[in-house]
């Protein structure tokens, strides 16, 4: 067993958000039932998501300390929009939470996929057996808490990934 430690410094936010956008687009094309969702819920969601994207993007670029003040403002927008949406607020918040969960898992995927599945050193071919991310991120049922966790996570700087490799074969 060999361990390889890499640091990921790419724009994970951009990649993760764009993956989600692609998924959404595919869902729109596939499922015309999306039209059934109220226009105002869609609109509020779009706007909230845009604010989240900006916030998380800045957290990555500027760091957690610089952006932490703004989490409350985005959460405030969500609260305001929820108040306006009345009994549609639950639908709105549910969609946001679901999308946040998806964003977090996409973010992990982006980071973890930076680890190569196979590494050849000399004549030996190592195959990836497990990976471990140094930073921790816990998803919460609260939008503000999840957002804080996500911003802290991406705003912490480098992402250190440790991969454990086993020897797969010997080159001939």
């Amino acid at each position: 067993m060999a361990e390889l430690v890499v640091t990921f410094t790419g724009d994970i936010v951009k990649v993760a958000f764009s993956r989600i956008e692609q998924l959404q687009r595919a869902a729109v094309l596939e499922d015309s039932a999306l039209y059934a969702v109220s226009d105002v819920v869609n609109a509020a969601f779009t706007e909230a998501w845009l604010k989240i994207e900006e916030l998380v993007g800045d957290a990555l670029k500027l760091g957690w300390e610089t952006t932490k003040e703004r989490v409350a403002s985005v959460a405030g927008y969500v609260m305001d929009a929820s108040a306006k949406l009345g009994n549609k607020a639950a639908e709105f918040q549910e969609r946001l939470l679901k999308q946040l969960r998806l964003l977090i898992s996409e973010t992990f995927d982006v980071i973890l996929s930076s680890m190569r599945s196979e590494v050849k050193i000399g004549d030996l071919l190592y195959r990836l057996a497990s990976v471990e991310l140094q930073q921790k991120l816990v998803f919460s049922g609260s939008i503000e808490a999840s957002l804080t966790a996500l911003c802290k996570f991406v705003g912490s700087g480098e992402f250190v990934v440790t991969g454990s490799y086993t020897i797969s074969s010997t080159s001939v």
Partner: protein
Amino acid sequence: MSQTNSLVDFYVNALQTTLGRTLRQRGAEQAALIRRLREKMMQGYHEGTKQVLDILTSQIDLPFDQRQSLVAGVLKLAEFTPELLTDAVDSNTLKKSIEEMYALALLVEKIGQPDMAYNLFEGAYHLASVLGDPSLKVAINLRRLANPDNVNQYHAAIWRFATAKLGDCVKAYKSRAATLPPTNEDWLSALDAVELAFNVCVDLIPLQQQLCDQFVQVLREAEGTPVEELVAIYPVQVDAQYIDPEKRGKLIAALTGSPAGSNDTPSRIAALELWAAVKGQTMLDDVRLKFLNRYRGRPNLSWHDLTLQHENLLHAVPLQRALIVDIDRTGELILELTHEIAHAYCLLGPIGWAITAFRVATHCCELIITSPDVKENSENKRTDGLANLQDDAALIDFAEIQLAACYRSAVHEAIWTPWLEGVAQYVEMLADPKADPQEIMTVHEAVRSLVDLSVDPLGGESQEDFAQRYSDELSKQFEDFLSDALSRYARFRHVGYLQEKARREVYLFGYLLVRSIVARWEVTLGRRIEPVLAAKLLLNASRNGTYSIAESLQREPEEFSSCASAIFSDWIETLATIDRESLEAFFESVASDALGHKYYWKGGRPRRVADHVDDAQATVNSSWTTFEQACTGLVSGTGLRHAPSALDIAGTVATEHHKLISQLFEHYLETMSLLPVGKDMSRLVLFDDGRAMVCPRTYVGLEEPREDGSLPRYSPRVFPLTGGATETDFLRRSCGLLGTARLHVTRIIDLTGHANSPNQRPNISYVCLFLGDKWHRVTLGDTHVTNGIGDDFIEALRRRVLHPPFPNEVGSLRSPLTLAKRLVERKAHSHYAALALAFNKDALSFDVALRAAARAFGSNEHELRDASSLTLAATKGRVDLADYLALTGKGQVTRNHPALGTPLASIALRTESMSGITPFGGSHG
């Protein structure tokens, strides 16, 4: 005597009659043989029965197969008869007897004796009841074959079907492992059947008692199933004489939460019973809603007949204060309604007249094409619902004329779509009634007509004072609500319209065009115009100032698009450049309680009718006549270069039927002016004291009930039937004949003040309850007022909702593609079919919208298209633009708004403009 003895007698009689009717000769000898057969069967002497049948067989005048089957069936049944005559019948024998009798009944029906088939089915049903398991397949046949003229038989069959259907569902539900569970449709069908049974009754008390007892047996099993609420409605909807009074009292107490006391007055008992009836029925309606397939789609108004579709308008009707009672639930809905009703308003003028003229031509041609000589059957029936086009040159030519009309209609709609969507968005998102101290905008007035208040006259208050107070209160509540909905949702709605979806650009360019025209008016006046005022002029112009459309109607289809587009462009240009004097006159304030001025349009300017009465009348009449005559021209194929062979005959047909064509034009427009909003198939409950009850669902009822129960989920109404017991009987009979206990309930807004309406005032709504064509109750709003609503008007309302001229018009007669496909089946090289097959309505709308917006902003089309694509591509661009449009729409211009950094900003957005949009004509304007 065994339980089945009289049954044996019953079915043997049926068999005796059946056989007797089939005999070649019917003399004394045959009669004696039939009697002997009966005797042998009744004696249970099987061998003897067989001997008599052997003699009879040769005399039966039926095809060989049927004869053999009949004799075999009788023999089999005869086999079971001895046991059926005893005191103890084995359940297997019963089951076999039911199956044999059922098979025999089917055969007897086949040989042309439905009455005897009915009797045999009835026999089978009774045997199944002895078994305690009503047979659904038997009950279905009883229901099918019952004689409508024999009321007892007919109504008994309804009860039996209800019992069997419910029993079948309950059994399937409870033995899930063995059978498939009932589907939602099954449960709905069971509920329909049961409700119908409750609405009909049998005059023979013992029979009705038996039917009730059999039903109750099944009903007991329904507890614990999704329809257990039936248990609650049974005791209050069925004649009390058939129910144990103690049980009935307990259920009423449980439903009302108020036990009846021994000292209760009759009026309190009656009130409790009524309350229980309402409670029970609405509980059941909540159950039904869960089984229904709900329409889930975008709100939509069909342009050809103004039919409104909305997920909150199906299974619910706007009644009482439901529309304005809770902003969380209906705030968005009221904006959507405003949008759609703005369309309806505009389409009642020449834009809609043109669609109607093309529609009349399309329908007339279809009537000619539909040959009465050709019988449609399942094999040759078209899936698109159209008639088959015969291989007849003249008919094929009519199909060409028809397609030319339909195609031009689609082109006309595509051209006007950007404008009408722009106006509707403007009205929906910006027109705040509270910003206008003047008379209410007509679209808002139409929406307001869907609201009823419970306001009572004060002591000593005159009728006029009360009417004024009611009106003031209604206006206040409605305007507060709408204004609140706008402040909550208008911005979100702006974002919503820019979301990624089909025709997004058409909506955006249309809206920007409208805003740009208003911006030009503001420049002309030198001041900002409140959107709610500008909306009035936009609506008025769209509805009354579009007569120039008539010029293009009879153009050759190839040229139609360019000609109609040019008319549209000229019209927009003229509208944008209305002079200051006309604008000032139009926006002159009118007291809020006074009737506003009426306008007609001449030379592209609004003119007050009151100042030019004769000229106004002449202008409107001449325009109407032009459109009316165009209908005849369209049917005769005037202006068509590619269907010349048809022109002679079509011309003759059109001339001969000119009057009819004109009437059709008028009739369709009349129908369109009556706008149904909401639909609920509501249960009609009949009481034996000559009263009826109906509980239509309101929007609020579409959602889960709240704990406080303060919102009106249903709007129950109980009313005396003017005909008393006779009318009750008539209704029971009608329900039976129509096969439903539910009324079509809707609320219809009279948008124009129908000639036969009580006072010919526009924007009054009527709540309509229709039992098919057999019965109705129409009230002024959701009140008890029925006076003054005449039969002619009611007939017009009924036609509007129950009798569309062609079913599923959208996918057939409204579709150039479908008509073209039918035509090419008979004529491979049709010029108009080729045109229709290549037509893309959305693409044309986009082109028109882009061109008009580019003209408005003095831009070039490529630049505008690229700028809008870039702006809309990113979420941020969309949200910023929506925010800017929402803010500037309210007159809040912000100089550093992020939308000013979008590619579209340099073309369409202008902060120094009073409403933030580049005025029409762009920088050169």
